[in-house]
Each structure stands twice: as C-alpha cells, then as structure tokens.
C-alpha cells in the first residue's frame, strides 16, 4: 500500500534545509519494508494574510509499504526527523494517511488550500473525519494545514511536481522516451498534435527534470523547440528554495 506523509512549516527564512529537502532526506530514515515512491512539492495559496517562509509549498513523501504494521514506526521516525532537522522557530506539521483511507474530504481541503485561507480547526476536523493522523510538532502548529493539504493534493493526483522519483537526479541528459518509461516517467507531448512519442526519441532535460503529478503518475510534459524535444523542468530558484 501507499502511505502519504505530508510535511509543512519545517523551516524559517534563510534556513539551509527547506521542507522539500527535509522530505527528500527522509528517504534515508525509512525502515526495511518501506520504499520512497516519490517526494512531491505542492503549491498553496500565496496571500499576505498567510504566514509562510518563502513559497507556501508543503511537501509529501509517498511511501510504499508491504505491511501496515510499519505505520507507527514510520510516523515515529518522521517525528524524530522533523525534530532533528526543522528550523528553530518553525511551526511544523505532519500528516500520515493510507491510500486506502477515504481521502475525498482531505482532497477537497487540499484543493481549497490552493485558493482559500484555511484554519487549523478545519484541518483537524477534516483529518478526524477521515481518520488520518495529523500532528502539530512545534511553535504555532500551523504546519498541520499544509501537511494535510499536501496529502490531499497528492491523493488528488493532478497537481504538484516531483522533487524525487526513482533516482530522478541520476538520470542522464538527454534521455530516451523508453528510458524515461523504464524509470516510471511517462513522456507526454503537449504540442498541438499530442502524438505518442517514439520510444527512441531523445528528451533534453537540461539537468532540471521535474516530472508533474498527472493522473497519479510521474509525467514529463514535452515540448519541441528548435527541432529538439525538451522536458519542462523547473527554474533555478526552486533548486535554491524548495529543494
């Protein structure tokens, strides 16, 4: 089964380890029987009334486990990971949910957080009704809002982008469509023809491959520029800030 582990508000301005990087680093803490399927960055509403460090972007570790008995150990390790690496003065939150839970209301909450101001009280109510774990781990505990939203948006499956996915950062550039598929990443042409790409075609990533979560899958949107197939990536500022 898949386990969604949402993290938010683990850093402060100027912190060396942002929430995205903290979540990627969590892979090393996974016990035997657990495997990181992917780490996702999600974008929530940017509004002056919402206190956030830089971009109001929580992250979610999606972990595959063989045995539900691992969940308490994973949760304990996530709490310890946050305690070890979260910035002094941050307001961390953690959410843990199984993909088999009824997450429909959590998904609605996540989508709401992308364009509305949400509250801790509402987050706790939604989490309680869905039966998912939602933990405030310091400061104002405001991180529970983004942590729950990150789980909801990951379960929704149609927004956010991958910070990590099956050795993403070690893939060559350029890389063939077939090799991307072997890595679990579907290359999708987004030009007018929307034609199936030749498995032998080479995709140029510029070293910034950052698949999107579309249909619950890792998808690389592909454009043709100057006769070359280019994967939509990320801008350098995200490497500095969110990762």
């Amino acid at each position, binding site marked *: 089964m898949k386990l969604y582990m949402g993290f938010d508000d683990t850093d402060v301005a100027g912190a060396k380890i942002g929430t995205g990087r903290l979540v990627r680093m969590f892979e090393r803490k996974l016990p035997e029987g657990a495997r990181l399927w992917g780490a996702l960055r999600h974008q929530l509403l940017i509004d002056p009334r919402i206190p956030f460090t830089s971009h109001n972007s929580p992250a979610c570790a999606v972990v595959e486990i063989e045995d539900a008995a691992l969940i308490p150990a994973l949760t304990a390790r996530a709490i310890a990971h946050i305690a070890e690496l979260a910035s002094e003065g941050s307001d961390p939150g953690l959410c843990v949910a199984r993909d088999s839970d009824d997450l429909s209301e959590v998904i609605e909450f996540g*989508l709401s957080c992308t364009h509305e101001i949400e509250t801790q009280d509402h987050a706790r109510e939604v989490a309680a009704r869905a039966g998912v774990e939602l933990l405030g781990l310091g400061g104002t505990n405001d991180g529970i809002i983004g942590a729950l939203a990150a789980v909801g948006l990951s379960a929704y499956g149609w*927004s956010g982008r991958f910070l990590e996915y099956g050795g993403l950062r070690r893939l060559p550039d350029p890389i063939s469509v077939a090799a991307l598929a072997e890595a679990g990443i579907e290359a999708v042409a987004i030009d007018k023809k929307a034609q*199936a790409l030749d498995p032998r075609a080479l995709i140029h990533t510029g070293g910034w491959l950052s698949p999107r979560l579309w*249909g619950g899958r890792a998808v690389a949107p592909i454009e043709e520029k100057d006769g070359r197939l280019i994967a939509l*990536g990320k801008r350098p500022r995200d490497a500095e800030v969110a990762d």
Partner: protein
Amino acid sequence: MRILIGIDDTDGAGWAASTARLAREFGDTLDGEARFIGSVGHMLFSGIAATTNNKASCLVVETERTDALDALFQLAAAYVEAHAAPSSAPGVVVAGEEAERLIDFGLEASRREIRGDEIEPALIGLRATGLRARRGLVGAAAAVGLTARGWSGRWLEFGGLRRFERAVQARELRAQGMFLVSLETDAEAPAPEDWVDTHGWLRPQLVAGRAVLPLRRIGEGMWATASVETAKKFR
C-alpha cells in the same frame, strides 16, 4: 463496459466531412445504444500518403448491454459505408477489453509505416472490417490501441466541447470531467473561479485515460490553453 470504435480513411479530396467529423456525428446517433463519452483524434506516422494528415479517430462509448460489441460493430460499419467518400478506403475496428492488444500496434503506427502483411495478424480475433482497399484498417486499429493506452491524442468531442465560449471558468471545465494542469514551475492547481482562454479551440489531451487541459498562467487568476497557435487543424 467501455467500448472503443476506431475509424479511419473515410474522407477523400474534396469530401466535406473529415473522419473526425464523421466519427463525432456517428457518436451523436448512438442515443439508446450506448453513452457516447467522446472521440479522440490520433496523429499517426506522417511519412505516408494521407488525405490531409495521417489522423485517425476513436470513439469512446460506455454501455451495460452484453451484446453491445456486436451491435455497435454493425452500426459503425453501416454508418461508415453510408457516409464515407466514394474514393476512400475506410476501416472500422471495435473492441472492449481486447483493445489492450492493439497498444503496441498503435505505437508502431505512430512512428513508422505499417506493412500490409502486419495488419491481418494484429486484427485476429477482433471485430474489424474495411471497404475497398481497406487502408483505413491500420489507422482504425492504431486509434483503438492508442486510446486504450491513454497517453496521446486529443479529444475532439467530450461533453459538448464546442458549446463553450472562448473564455470559460475552471469550475465549468471541471464539471464536464476535465482535469486542468498547470505547466508552470509551481504546478499549482487552477482555482475554480479562474478564467481559461481556450483560444476558441477547446481540445483536451488524452492523458492517463482522461481529458486533460495543460495550461499556462497568463495573469492573476487567468490561464490559457497551451500549444495552440491557430485553430482548425483538428476538425
């Protein structure tokens, strides 16, 4: 049960109705037979002679009728025979779950010309028919395979695409079952009240088996569909 109906090579030089239009109009006749979900246009290998471009269509329908495959096959074959251009060489392929068997064939037809001797083996055990030179069987089978795969092509009909105004709110598109995805670095979800400029050409992509609109942000609360320069190549 979901049923796919591939149709290709029904038009000819000077013939008013393209295959895409014929497929769409056939879908509209299916009331009572099956629910017409939409039709998907697939671009195939461009290096072979085609009327305008090598594009095949696939209708997606749903039904609970146990005899639907045979009934729809007969209806589709009769409709194509009655409405295809006299100079055309149409093909019709109808498949339920067995459509998966045509995925590799569809991918091959996207990247190279299919030899004549490759067609019949691919169609063994499937409901397929062709008229005259039967060239359209390749495209019809490929369209079924690619639609079953679910990761390429554009919806030419899906919940009344043509009735939308050029500027439409995200919530209206979602209500029709479309998924809106941002191509921006933040990959954010467009808000329900955000506006989408479709450039007057609303043709979602087939992605993960769904109707998906990749969008670029053009302003606060405003988006535009991506990769659309001018309308009207897909009819």
